[in-house]
């Protein structure tokens, strides 16, 4: 939101204003129904909420519970495991989500055959366009206990079959791999756009001065990418309380044995909502919304100090 342009018309309400309001009305109504009503609905975290009959009368009539729902939530071990998973996975995702795509973007720009590079890039963009339900079906084809490709390969090498969906120890690696796999095309697009935007005369000057490719990367490309990398990092940190529900729910197929390594805040809220433990679900959702809001505003505050143009406001 920048400074207003100088006013050309009077401050009086115009016919145009009425028409523009009409034009904006459907979307405004959408925002009220699907964004702002839920914001007020968040008070059910402080209520002893039972769903029966009308929603509004329920919200108003159900008794206040104070911080009871939060006490229940944080007394259970689930809450801490969930928060640990949410923050832990996100930290790893953020680091790898920068390191790997940046490296690959640097590499793909150096291929002698540019057309091949384009083909690789298109192929690596595919996972981005697949839904987690489809991905989960494919993972099942690999990890199914009796029919899976992974166990067939193990058997061929003389090893015992593994019941993958019951063994928590493998899943942090699987989930991290799947996250990198799905985001790799997107990340490369963002970083390649920056690399191709760098003025080629920098490189020409460097070559004339005898700089090696590695030196060019280190002293030209990476410094020019620094701003974008820092931005992507901060924006990702701002969303550290949110996770990709599909990755953590669909890919492990909601297996209870994997609870400790696959439950994040989004999964916890969904599961409790579905089992009608509304009190705990709304308390967990409240924690996520409020902490999410704080981290996003904080991230945005930092972005504005680094590069005001990129800040949300």
């Amino acid at each position, binding site marked *: 939101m920048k400074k207003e342009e100088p006013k050309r018309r009077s401050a009086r309400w115009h016919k145009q204003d009425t028409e523009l309001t009409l034009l904006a009305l459907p979307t405004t109504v959408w925002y009220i129904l699907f964004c702002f009503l839920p914001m007020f609905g968040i008070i059910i975290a402080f209520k002893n909420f039972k769903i029966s009959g009308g929603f509004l009368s329920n919200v108003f009539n159900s008794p206040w519970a104070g911080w009871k729902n939060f006490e229940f939530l944080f007394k259970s071990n689930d809450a801490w495991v969930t928060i640990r998973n949410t923050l832990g996975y996100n930290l790893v995702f953020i680091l790898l989500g920068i390191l790997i795509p940046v490296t690959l973007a640097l590499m793909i720009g150096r291929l002698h055959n540019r057309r091949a590079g384009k083909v690789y890039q298109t192929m690596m963009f*595919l996972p981005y366009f697949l839904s987690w339900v489809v991905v989960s079906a494919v993972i099942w084809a690999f990890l199914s206990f009796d029919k899976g490709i992974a166990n067939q390969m193990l058997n061929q090498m003389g090893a015992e079959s593994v019941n993958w969906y019951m063994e928590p120890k493998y899943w942090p690696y699987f989930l991290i791999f799947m996250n990198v796999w799905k985001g790799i095309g997107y990340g490369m697009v963002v970083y390649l756009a920056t690399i191709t935007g760098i003025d080629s005369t920098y490189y020409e000057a460097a070559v004339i001065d005898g700089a090696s490719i590695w030196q060019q990367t280190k002293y030209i490309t990476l410094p020019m990418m620094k701003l974008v990398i820092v931005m992507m990092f901060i924006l990702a940190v701002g969303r550290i309380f949110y996770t990709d529900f599909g990755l953590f729910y669909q890919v492990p197929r909601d297996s209870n044995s994997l609870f400790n390594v696959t439950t994040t805040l989004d999964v916890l809220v969904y599961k409790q909502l579905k089992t009608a433990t509304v009190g705990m679900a709304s308390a967990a959702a409240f924690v996520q*919304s409020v902490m999410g809001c704080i981290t996003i505003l904080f991230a945005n505050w930092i972005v504005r100090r680094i590069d005001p143009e990129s800040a949300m406001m």
Partner: protein
Amino acid sequence: MAAAKSETSSGLDRYNRISTGMNLLFHLIFILLALVCIVPIVVILSISFSSEDSIRETGYHLLPTMFSVEAYGFILKQGTVILRAFGVSVLVTVLGTVIGVLLTASMGYVLAQPNYKLKNFLTWVVFIPMVFNGGLVSSYYINANLLGLKDTVWALILPLAVSSFNVIICKTFFRTTIPDGIVESAEIDGASQLRIFFSIIMPISLPVLATIGLFLCFGYWNDWFQSMLYINDQDLYSLQALLNNLMSNVDALARNASTMGISYASLVATMPKETARMAVAILIVVPVAFAYPFFQRYFIAGLTVGSIKG
């Protein structure tokens, strides 16, 4: 994107290359990665074109051990459940994209008008949801109970129609690329703002509308979460919801057996299950896999627009 660079390449480029060995190594790494990324297509194709018996006996394979099209035969003959889900997916995608683009573009246009009196207010309306949201629980109860969207096709469409990010992309586009003169001269000619928006702005804004439309289109086609939340009625399952359901209960494909004059039990006993399930995945993936290479450019434009905003 790589092509853009070669345009600016100079003769120096010949001296400024990685060594042939390095080049080979890089190619190898990328070939490996690219294969890992298209493995889903291979697996889904392979299983859907296998014979049901071979899967029952020897499991899934990267390449079919016994080729068969029985899964597709089943869809054509007895797959009313699948074809219905395909219809729901197409309906939701088309309707959702149209509604989403209209809602997004109209708000973007209004916010781009510098003299509009409620501009600041509406800017906040769009901005606040970007940093704060009510969370899943209250959204769920409001959509399901207050708005009565449960088990309607609108539950799949409306909650995903607008995103503040898209509105801002639109606003930036209108602000930066549409000359003020066009709007002003139309105003002088006495055209109403609605008229200006629909007959002047929309037609000349196709690039941005296409980008947003594509994001919405892929988003709706790939959505399963809304179905999981709001849809219990299996007649309203989209392909994604159907596949999701089949992963835990593959017999659901025989749900409509009675309408085809076959008993449920005999259809369950004879139909291909594993392969038909993957044929559903093919129906989902093939349109996407064929479409995205052509539209990649618009996606890239949309993904990299984040840095330019007004």
